[in-house]
């Protein structure tokens, strides 16, 4: 599958106010139109449709009659799963042009009095035999509580500190200062993070992602066809996915995610080592999420993530540029943030990220997390130079 498919079109929408004008299917359609324009393709070229939950209803709305349909819904990581599935389907000739789309407007929906469902049709936990049933009586605030328990364990076992987690929020905000569409663009300090309200210990308000409107889409096609399109192809070099649990009380090891399986699988398929990676797009629902992903992708030993992120290593000018949009912490987070990982990784490899461009970026890794550190998926994207 390595290098057989490429991302050829991307689009995303977010605003400093947190609000978008469009919503629902209209917003999804706008993103698809923009991503197709980016690629130089038309809706009639699309023969594979991907959506987190309801690709069938979406296809009808869009007037599409695809031959390949994928409604994979793993929460925030859905779109990394979509990249993996689309790359395999394209490599095996099951489809030619694949589109994945996401739109969610919890920020403006709340003002409109529409409830503001976080995530875009996020489902209630099923009430049959389910881990959630045995968590709900105890008032764990979700989703933060699950991540807070992981952070609690990581601190107890590895000595990770609140200051080290705060460093992640600070570096990520530094990137956001270079992104005119980011929700928050003013720099913050470690002290600011620690002084923000404690929500679920040990996580403060500024350890948490935003809740904004946001939307995006990407288009993939075969490597051959990609070379004739508008923008330089961004090849899918490797993918990997893994699941370890759904509810946090069933997480086998609170300090280790299934990215320890998805990451090596993706790196092996891509044939890359850590030194080859020019930038990372890591799911940052909370600061602890980023820290766990860095460790689990193998950029440092388990337990050493806290020390690793010190000194702005992840920020502008740092050795390992990470979450260059400002991430879910400062750019946008409409509930299922994984779409924005793919979009930005693609732009970085193309060299079109403007003030936040990582120099000579040929290999970008997007690693998503869905559920409560549950469904993990990693994609390695690369330029023609590393194909």
């Amino acid at each position, binding site marked *: 599958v390595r290098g057989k498919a490429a991302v050829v079109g991307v689009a995303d929408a977010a605003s400093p106010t947190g609000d978008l004008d469009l919503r629902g299917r209209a917003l999804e359609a706008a993103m698809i139109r923009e991503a197709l324009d980016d690629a130089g393709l038309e809706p009639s070229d699309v023969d594979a449709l991907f959506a987190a939950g309801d690709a069938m209803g979406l296809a009808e709305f869009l007037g599409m009659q695809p031959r390949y349909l994928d409604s994979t819904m793993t929460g925030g990581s859905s779109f990394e799963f979509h990249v993996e599935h689309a790359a395999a389907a394209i490599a095996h000739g099951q489809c030619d042009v694949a589109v994945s789309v996401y739109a969610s407007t919890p920020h403006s929906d709340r003002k409109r009095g529409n409830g503001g469902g976080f995530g875009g049709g996020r489902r209630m936990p099923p009430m049959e035999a389910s881990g959630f049933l*045995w968590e709900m009586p105890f*008032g764990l605030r979700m989703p933060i*509580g699950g991540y807070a*328990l992981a952070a609690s364990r990581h601190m*107890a076992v590895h000595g990770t500190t609140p200051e080290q987690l705060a460093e992640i929020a600070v570096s990520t905000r530094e990137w956001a200062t270079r992104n005119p569409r980011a929700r928050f663009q003013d720099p913050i300090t470690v002290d600011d993070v620690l002084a923000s309200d404690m929500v*679920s*210990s040990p996580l403060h308000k500024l350890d948490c992602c935003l809740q904004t409107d946001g939307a995006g889409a990407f288009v993939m096609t075969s490597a051959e066809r990609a070379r004739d399109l508008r923008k330089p192809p961004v090849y899918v070099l490797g993918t990997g996915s893994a699941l370890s649990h759904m509810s*946090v*009380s*069933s997480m086998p090891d609170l300090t280790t995610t299934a990215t320890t399986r998805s990451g090596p699988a993706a790196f092996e398929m891509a044939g890359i080592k850590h030194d080859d990676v020019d930038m990372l797009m890591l799911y940052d629902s909370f600061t602890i999420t980023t820290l766990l992903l860095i460790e689990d992708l193998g950029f440092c030993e388990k337990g050493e993530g806290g020390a690793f992120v010190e000194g702005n290593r992840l920020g502008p000018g740092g050795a390992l540029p990470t979450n260059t949009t400002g991430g879910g912490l400062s750019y946008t987070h409409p509930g299922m943030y994984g779409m924005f990982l793919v979009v930005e990784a693609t732009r970085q490899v193309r060299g079109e990220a403007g003030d936040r461009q990582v120099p000579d970026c040929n290999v970008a890794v997007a690693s998503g997390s869905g559920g409560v550190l549950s469904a993990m998926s990693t994609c390695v994207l690369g330029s023609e130079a590393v194909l």
Partner: protein
Amino acid sequence: VSDEAKATRFEPPITPEAEPFWEASRDQRFVLPWCTDCGKAFWYPRPVCPVCLRPNVEWRPGSGRGEVHAVSVMYRPGNPMMADRVPYAVALVELEEGVRIMSNVVGIEADQVKVGMPVGITWEPMSDGRHLPLFEPEA
């Protein structure tokens, strides 16, 4: 037992696979599901063993003792029914039987609950005569 007992937090429905658990809780007895084939306890209750998938599940008395595996203090409630309890400690408790269960640790200031702390079971009455298993520091 008051006639107009009202639920003061989310009370799970009695699902078929968990009936033995809730029945025992009426007498404040703590029981755990075991797979008789694997010889191991598991949590949460399921009609089949989550290792071998066989339906040979037996309920056995649990020790009710364990230690705090991870803890988070909620300064904002997890749902509106919990609003008057903040701050409260939500913990994953690793039981002696080797299973991990979510609960609240009570009988101590919430921010004094620490990972590794030995805890034992205590019960909070529910509105319908059942009891909810909570934990408190072991004396």
